[in-house]
């Protein structure tokens, strides 16, 4: 078994396909799956031109693995000359004059961008229902959500439109949709992938990453996008590991921590059973399962829902109708310009978080909310540090449920936030984590989350890859057999 990217790369090198063929096929699949609403923008001309350039590079020999491979970018990454909406009416017509570092690096590796994937507005949401452009749908069941906020990226990969897509993860926005759509989603360590050109939601938590069919695909993409970027002061200047080279590392003797807190009351029975079966599989492959405790796990949601909105309230102040983005018609005064442009440009969830965040940073409330949340954040990070003294990886369900129905939680923000229970702590601690397909419950995919210490992406990818060498959950596709 080999990865989708490796297979395509081989066929390109064997001249069985050209990059132009792959781009045309992908564009055709995108049209075929238009009902999924997985993309906000598809730019056929740009895609075909990029494919032609990739074919020239391929003809020259020795090329990176991603050369000629099609992808979609989450519409949060700025693309020079291609509109970048962030799923918002506010940026409906915004065309950036520059590329995000992730976009630049993938283009440099010869990957072919088809367009931009649907997402929750400003990456705020767990269902993709908060997109101004309408929800993306789950290819496994069109009445269900694909997860969020990188819902369009997950749907596009799961439906086979593209072999991989970029995403961002602030509280689970790569891993949860990957779990809901039955694919692999990697959230790297904070600082491993540059945030330059990635529209900010919560700067201390936002992390660019990848959604693809398997861990090997993720390794190829991470190898292309990871590394120091002087344009991002939070980007870490340290060497990038050989993610592809270490994939064959055996699971023998790897200690995997199982935190009871990740199997709490909110976890559906089917999800719990499926994840335990996957853990048993890992054990069979030589891993040692160790019970661990993450005592502050239940504080992650409240801490996250103070810190993320606080940062967002400030990050989203720039959308004021003055320089770019949505501007209300015929403003009567400066205040009217601000109020109506923002009232019209932002959706309900974005407004809710701006209000919550503004409140948390206000004089008189700052200590009780923001500062306390930062202290909790340190406790949560310490929990992980302690746990990683005993184990190499930590495992649990990525999400407590399988993909829920459209509209099911749309009017209950707290229920929606609770769905992030197993993912947000990882962002608060800045750690790398991956969600891999672990089986099915009620006919819907279930994700297994593996968490590693900071900058141990290679360990994470190798473990996931070993699991995928011995299981085929990641090869299941909607509407068909493996």
């Amino acid at each position, binding site marked *: 078994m080999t990865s989708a990217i490796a297979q395509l790369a081989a066929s390109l090198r064997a001249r069985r396909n050209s990059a132009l063929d792959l781009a045309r096929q992908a564009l055709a699949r995108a049209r075929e799956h238009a009902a999924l609403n997985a993309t906000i923008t598809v730019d056929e001309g740009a895609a075909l031109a990029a494919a032609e350039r990739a074919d020239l590079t391929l003809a020259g020999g020795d090329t990176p693995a991603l050369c000629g491979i099609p992808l979609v970018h989450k519409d949060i990454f700025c693309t020079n000359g291609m509109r970048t909406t962030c799923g918002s009416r506010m940026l409906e017509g*915004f065309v*950036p004059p520059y590329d995000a570092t992730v976009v630049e690096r993938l283009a440099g590796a010869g990957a072919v961008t088809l367009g931009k994937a649907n997402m929750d507005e400003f990456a705020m949401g767990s269902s993709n229902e908060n997109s101004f452009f309408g929800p993306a749908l789950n290819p496994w069941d069109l009445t269900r959500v694909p997860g969020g906020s990188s819902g369009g990226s997950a749907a596009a990969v799961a439906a086979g439109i593209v072999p991989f897509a970029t995403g961002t993860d602030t509280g689970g926005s790569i891993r949860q949709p990957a779990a809901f759509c039955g694919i692999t989603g990697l959230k790297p360590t904070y600082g491993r992938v540059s945030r*330059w*050109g990635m529209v*900010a939601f919560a700067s201390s938590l936002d992390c660019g990453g990848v959604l693809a069919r398997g861990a090997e695909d993720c390794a190829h993409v991470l190898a292309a996008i990871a590394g120091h970027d002087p344009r991002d002061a*939070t980007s870490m200047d340290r060497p990038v590991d050989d993610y592809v080279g270490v994939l064959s590392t055996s699971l023998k003797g790897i200690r995997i921590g199982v935190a009871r807190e990740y199997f709490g009351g909110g976890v559906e029975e089917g999800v719990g059973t499926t994840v335990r079966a996957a853990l048993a599989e890992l054990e069979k492959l030589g891993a040692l399962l160790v019970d661990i405790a993450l005592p502050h796990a239940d504080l992650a949601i409240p801490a996250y829902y103070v810190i993320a909105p606080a940062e967002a309230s*400030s990050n*989203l102040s720039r959308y004021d109708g003055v320089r770019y983005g949505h501007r209300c018609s015929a403003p009567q005064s400066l205040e009217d310009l601000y109020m109506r442009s923002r009232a019209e440009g932002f959706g309900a969830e974005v407004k809710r978080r701006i209000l919550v965040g503004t409140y948390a940073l*206000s004089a008189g409330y700052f200590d009780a909310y923001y500062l306390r949340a930062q202290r909790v954040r340190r406790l949560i990070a310490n929990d992980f540090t302690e746990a990683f003294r005993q184990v190499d990886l930590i495992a649990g369900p990525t999400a407590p449920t399988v993909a829920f129905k459209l509209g099911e939680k749309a009017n209950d923000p707290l229920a929606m936030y609770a769905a992030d229970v197993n993912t947000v702590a990882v962002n608060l601690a800045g750690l790398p984590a991956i969600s891999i397909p672990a089986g099915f419950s009620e006919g819907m995919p279930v994700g297994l989350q593996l968490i590693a210490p900071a900058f141990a992406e290679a360990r994470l990818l190798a473990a996931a890859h070993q699991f995928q060498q011995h299981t085929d959950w990641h090869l299941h596709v909607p509407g068909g057999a493996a």
Partner: protein
Amino acid sequence: MTMPHSSHPTSHGSWQAVIGLEIHAQLNAASKLFSGASTAYGAEPNTHASVIDVALPGTLPVPNRAALHKAIRFGLAVGAQIARQSVFARKNYFYPDLPKGYQISQYELPVVSAGRLAVRVEDGRTIDVEIQRAHLEEDAGKSVHDAFHAATAIDLNRSGTPLLEIVSAPVLHSPAEAVAYMRTVHTLVRWLDICDGNMQEGSFRCDANVSVRRAGETKLGTRAEIKNVNSFRFVEKAIEYEIERQVRALENGEAIVQETRLYDAAHHRTRSMRGKEDAHDYRYFPDPDLPPLSVSSADIAAIEAGMPELPAARRARYESALGLPEADAAQLCSDRATADYFEATLAALAAHGAEHASGAQGREGSGSNAKLAANWVLGELAAALNEATVHIEASHVSAAQLAQLLARVGDGTISGKIAKDVFAAMWAGEGDADTIIAARGLRQISDSGALAAAIDAILAEFPKQLADYRAGNDKLLQFFVGQAMKRTKGQANPQQLNALLRERLGPMAEV
């Protein structure tokens, strides 16, 4: 030295004013605090604004280390603590020329804290001013209200320009002290080459916090903040007005409200801009885009090694080692380029081996040269620079050229009076002193035979004046000096001429 914070006599009777200044000095770094865009003044609107300065989505700030180093230079100059880790914070508020909706500043952990600066006040006292903090922050853009009809234009060229905000403790007690402090800081930031000090362009401006209290009271009164004053004179006038306004109000039994006020230069008064109830809640929090700014001991040591001799030290040296009067020393040290010019002149003069014969003897051998050089730099040269509105760094007469001229005065080749003509010729570009003296035949006549012949000719020409002089009209001595100078085309050695004249004129009658 330091005076206690007593109320010294003012026109406000038993009231004491308490003033603290927040000075905004624009750091003269080539690029902005968080982007690579140029900080040059006066470009076409919005041509020096990068995607970061415009705050496009997805852009991120990266700190400019050059600006940080300039802030540290200031900190070292005022003996302050330099934070090994300082933290950038966001100050959130909406304004059309504030593109991000927040200003990146420093709040809880500024780069510079707890400094002190000795300030000489007009009345001769020296006060010791505590500088609570100096922090880095970015400037906003500009709103232009008169460029278009019924619309405000935004120019973001200034957006992101690095500023150092220097905050004094509330320890100043009169407009004169406040202005003296502001001038001292102004001299210092230019001296350190961290700010061009250009107040017209807004590179150096200040907010003044003013309150008053009864003499002897230790609790601070309610303060008003006067925003954005950009000249020394306006600061003085604004504070003066504000003290009077507050004293008048309190004496009428009114309360002072905490508020922000603007100075109206046309009417020399302040007026309310916004009250406390309208004060912004800036929602400061550490900027998550910027990790704490680290400074190593090696960084600090390197910056320290590159520090110039500070103005106060140099002024003291001019007084003690060169024997210059306090006023001369202070004036020379009001500007580093002037002080450097003076020292270059002095060094070149020493190289000429000249020692001004008739000058007062200093404590060191070079003392008289120092006074001569100081007089010329602060006199003739300053006047010429002023008239031509040329800065001393672009002076038409170099320090070496001036030194040669002064050497010719020192060795008696020309008189001080002739030297002024030679200087004017040098300024006009006619060459150096020796060339001009030779070309114009200005060499002083010190040949006593030639001088005596000239004097005899004059005495023969003016017998009546000679008789009057001898009858006791000693004012006529100057008449004869003038005539002799005229006959020698000004080239007579004045001392020699005087001596010879007295000798030839003979004794005056006893009156």
